[in-house]
């Protein structure tokens, strides 16, 4: 481990430095750089450099379940707040997804014509926030980065967005803030509990995990607060209605990042914080989350089916897809949870690409109405081909990335929730329905709209934006092992941490109660929750 290199810090702050330089270097001033092309190239270079750093991080990452490349420095020592970052397989995978998508998005930024420099600034700032969120090991640091993701996205949608952007941005921000402030209260509560028990304050995740004891009731409330914040971000039904609006109004790059990375933060938050900190609270909510996930899968698919706005359709498909991720997560076994994380990557790639594709159409025709298209396959064959590939990836055709994720999730969660998973299979069918309907209505049929007659096929630059994603679709579908190999130990660590902490808390609480009122314990023996996770996984443990 080369923690002396501060690899993660460089990774996180390189985009920020780039963003600041955009404004400091006079070369990029709009009066000099009339069309923003220099700024574009510069920020692309920054994003590629960030990608290179993330590859270095990957190279120095060892395949095991531990936190690696850990850096730690005191930040606000009197509060036990530290700047602590580190990655395990899960966060590294998501970091790589971010750093891969960002150059793609910046390449696609050519559709932004006004205030280019500000756009690039916000994008790079957003990248810093996302990477920070994924690497943070201190709850406070996490919260700061989590909230920092808000402002740039807000500006990106608000300034470069569509006609209803104001409603969309306010909805997006208020929804998110509403969730995250409650998470803040919960964080403060946990830290308070920690301070009560240890006499000092710490926001460091590992400290909180190791030494905070919470009663079952506390856990339930705290998990609820975290789950609200993360559930809104995911988004879990019924907290999803900000997503279609935000997506529809966002500029292409914004949509890609929103779908590609931002939505992943919810699941990531569950994995890194929600479940390990409050295992028994989480357990109580698992049936709820699972039910909502399945509702989301079916509901999102059904609603996507009747959309006439392409972006809205893809947005609702995200609701459905993220439902799978939640399902896989709450199944809490290695197969399903690994699949869940893998599906996060897939969704980032395929849905990101779909939004890029919609962006390509929108740039040319300035409409997202399905009825405005039709028969495009004859006019723009390369586009149609790309659209097809990403559509297939989205509906999880074998040998594309989507299949691996979906199969792992469904296989794994079938062991835990046979009924729910069977219902979730409806999503597999409905996914084909809405995506192929979209494909048919846009690409097939007569080229009957006169305006589409002058459409041009994707340019070389646009092909360049799709190429990395195209490669990833097939690579991750054909040979996912390099990624799975890194995810699995991290997921195992996650699961065993959850289980261990659950047991620890259980024992402490039982012990405490035994000390206080021995007779109470006998009365409650059967009713005390908390063994479920252990029991359920042991059911078919041999297979998991």
């Amino acid at each position, binding site marked *: 481990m080369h923690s002396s290199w501060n690899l993660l810090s460089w990774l996180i702050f390189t985009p920020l430095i780039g963003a600041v330089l955009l404004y400091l270097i006079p070369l990029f001033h709009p009066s000099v750089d009339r069309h923003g092309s220099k700024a574009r190239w510069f920020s692309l270079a920054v994003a590629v450099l960030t990608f290179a750093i993330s590859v270095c991080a990957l190279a120095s990452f060892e395949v095991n379940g531990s936190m690696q490349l850990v850096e730690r420095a005191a930040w606000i020592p009197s509060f036990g707040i530290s700047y602590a970052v580190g990655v395990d397989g899960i966060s590294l995978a998501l970091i790589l997804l971010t750093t891969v998508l960002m150059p793609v998005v910046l390449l696609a930024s050519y559709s932004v014509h006004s205030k280019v420099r500000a756009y690039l600034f916000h994008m790079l700032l957003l990248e810093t926030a996302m990477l920070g969120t994924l690497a943070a090991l201190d709850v406070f640091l996490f919260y700061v980065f989590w909230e920092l993701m808000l402002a740039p996205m807000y500006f990106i949608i608000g300034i470069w967005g569509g006609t209803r952007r104001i409603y969309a941005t306010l909805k997006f921000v208020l929804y998110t803030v509403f969730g995250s402030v409650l998470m803040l209260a919960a964080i403060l509560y946990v830290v308070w509990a920690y301070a009560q028990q240890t006499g000092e304050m710490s926001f460091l995740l590992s400290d909180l995990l190791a030494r905070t004891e919470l009663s079952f009731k506390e856990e339930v409330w705290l998990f609820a607060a975290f789950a609200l914040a993360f559930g809104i971000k995911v988004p879990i039904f019924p907290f999803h209605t900000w997503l279609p609006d935000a997506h529809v109004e966002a500029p292409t790059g914004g949509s890609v990042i929103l779908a590609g990375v931002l939505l992943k933060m919810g699941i990531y938050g569950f994995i890194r914080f929600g479940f390990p900190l409050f295992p028994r609270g989480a357990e109580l909510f698992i049936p709820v989350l699972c039910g909502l996930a399945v509702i989301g899968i079916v509901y999102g698919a*059904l*609603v996507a089916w009747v959309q006439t706005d392409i972006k809205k359709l893809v947005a609702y498909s995200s609701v459905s897809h993220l439902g799978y991720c939640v399902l896989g997560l709450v199944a809490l076994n*290695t197969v399903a949870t690994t699949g869940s994380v893998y599906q996060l990557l897939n969704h980032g790639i395929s849905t990101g690409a779909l939004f890029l594709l919609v962006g390509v159409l929108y740039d040319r025709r300035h409409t997202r109405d399905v009825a405005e298209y039709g028969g495009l396959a004859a006019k723009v064959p390369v586009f149609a081909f790309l659209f097809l590939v990403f559509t297939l990836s989205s509906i999880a055709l074998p040998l594309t990335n989507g299949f691996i994720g979906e199969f792992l999730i469904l*296989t794994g969660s079938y062991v835990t929730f046979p009924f729910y998973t069977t219902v979730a299979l409806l999503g597999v069918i409905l996914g084909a*329905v809405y995506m*192929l309907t979209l494909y*048919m209505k846009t690409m*097939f049929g007569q080229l009957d709209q006169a305006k589409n007659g002058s459409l041009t096929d994707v340019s070389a630059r646009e092909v360049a934006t799709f190429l990395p994603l195209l490669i990833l679709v097939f690579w991750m579908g054909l040979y996912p092992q390099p990624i799975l190999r890194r995810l699995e130990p991290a997921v195992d660590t996650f699961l065993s941490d959850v289980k261990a902490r659950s047991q620890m808390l259980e024992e402490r609480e039982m012990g405490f109660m035994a000390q206080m009122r021995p007779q109470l314990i006998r009365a409650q023996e059967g009713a005390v929750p908390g063994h479920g996770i252990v029991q359920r996984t042991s059911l078919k443990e041999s297979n998991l």
Partner: protein
Amino acid sequence: MERTNAALALIPLFPLVGSVAAFLVGRVHKRAAGIIASLASILAFVWTAKLFAAMSAETVLEDVVFSWFGVASLQVDFTLRMDALGAVMCLVVTGIGSLIHIYSTAYMAEDDSVHRFFSYLNLFMFSMLLLVLGGNLLVLFVGWEGVGLCSYLLIGFWFRTIDYAAAGRKAFVVNRIGDAGFLLGIFLLWMNFGTVDFLELEAAIAGNMTLVGLCTVVALCLFIGATGKSAQIPLFVWLPDAMAGPTPVSALIHAATMVTAGIYMMARMDFVFALAPFTLAIVTIVALLTAFVAATTALLQNDIKKVLAYSTVSQLGFMFLAASAGAYWVAIFHVVTHAFFKACLFLGAGSVIHGCHHEQDMRHMGGLSRYMPITFATYLVATLAIAGIFPFAGYQSKHAILGALEHNVNPYIAPYNSWIVALVTFTAFLTAFYMTRSLAMTFFGKYRGHAHPHESPAAMSGVLVALAVLSLFGGWFLETRLPNFLEHVLAVAPGHASETIVESLLHSWVGIAGVVLGLLFYTSLAGVPGLVFSLFKPIGVLFQRKWFVDELYQAILVRPLEGVSRGLWKAVDQGFIDGAVNGSGAVIDTSGQVLRLTQSGQVRHYALWMFVATIAIVVFFLVRS
């Protein structure tokens, strides 16, 4: 059983490379696409044949291409495996496939997107070969979905007509419904046995009577998958629509190979079905119904391809009947012979369509035997074969099916064996009848169209002849060889006693009756069909309108679901959730507006408020202390 390593991956690899090459080269040189694709297909056939030649009935060739994915104990290798069953299927796929490729070079010569066509066709070959060579359920599933994709692409090949594209979508979606069931079966198998490999599963399951309950469920799930791919009730509706694709596609995918995947899968998983007599009983009933319904529907269709499509559905029912009786080898036998004659029929129909300038309605044909004699001859042979008349290929397989059904030992079915045989026999009679009808309407009488029919080029007619020869001798050739070859893989019932030619001819009476009646009805007694139709009008309309199944599905499934979706979106999303979100915003805003009234701007009001608040504080403290 001997497992040996072999370069099996080459078999699917040829068409895969061919697919890419045909597309890239074909964009520049239109003719090259067909040649490359055909070559790839032939190479695959040759390589299969070479491997086949070296193997015995007990050989299992194996090729672990790479370790595909694995998490915890779910480790899936990309394994290809060829045993006797796989070899037979492989030979059929590559053999028939090659012929159809050659045919297509002529058939599709004038199409603008010929490179796309051949690319898809080769991609289909690739997927189909993965399907039959897959050594575990997941590789099979890759092929399973892959052929579905290619089917989708090829049905919608002429995508400018939105109906064709819609037919492609329908095929994919209906297949997906089946696939969901298939996946469920896979989940159950993995959950209980921790593996998806066929050999390992077989070792764990075969003959273990304690697993009957599980196997019943698993088999049902798998069969749901099969009903999708192999067009059985209730999921058969996509296949007739799939005729929107170019005719060679119908021949290859929707008759000879892909649609038999369900039977192949069932044969492959025979060890599961063997423990699931209840499921097998369901299979019998479904297959019987399918065979009958499709045959009756085919009676009154006027589109030549629709007749063949329903005939295919019906014949697939026959295959499932055989399989459900435990006679898997018979099912495979029928798969093979059906591939011969149905491909021949479809390609013949294609030749007719090609000759009549894309006319598909048989009412605008007639008397074509004079214009296209080779097509006629081959079509005739194939018709006789499907009618089950000795010595044509269909006779042996159909006879074997009836034999198997007679001796079905399934406890749930056995009491009704004779009824089933009777209905199947009747269906076979219908088959002979409607096929003769199509033959007569197309080739006999006077030409009723306006085009100038002509015989197809050599590439097409040559292939027709080859398939006709196979339809003629295939059954006789395979009748004894196939069971011997397959006996180590599939349960092969003791072969029935060999019969004399006279006996065989006597056993063909059903087919002969059908053919004769058909000929009478549609040549000399031309007024009779109309008379019969008007006599039994309700039934006639029912048959003509395909039992109203599409309408039924539209009415009870598609439209309600669409309505529900729209309702959910409007009521739940925009109404309820957004209503709650915007509503809580409005409540906050309104409460702000109401509270604003306190800020009246009048100093004395403010003073009063402050005084009241002070009093409140003082009183509060007085009460507290």
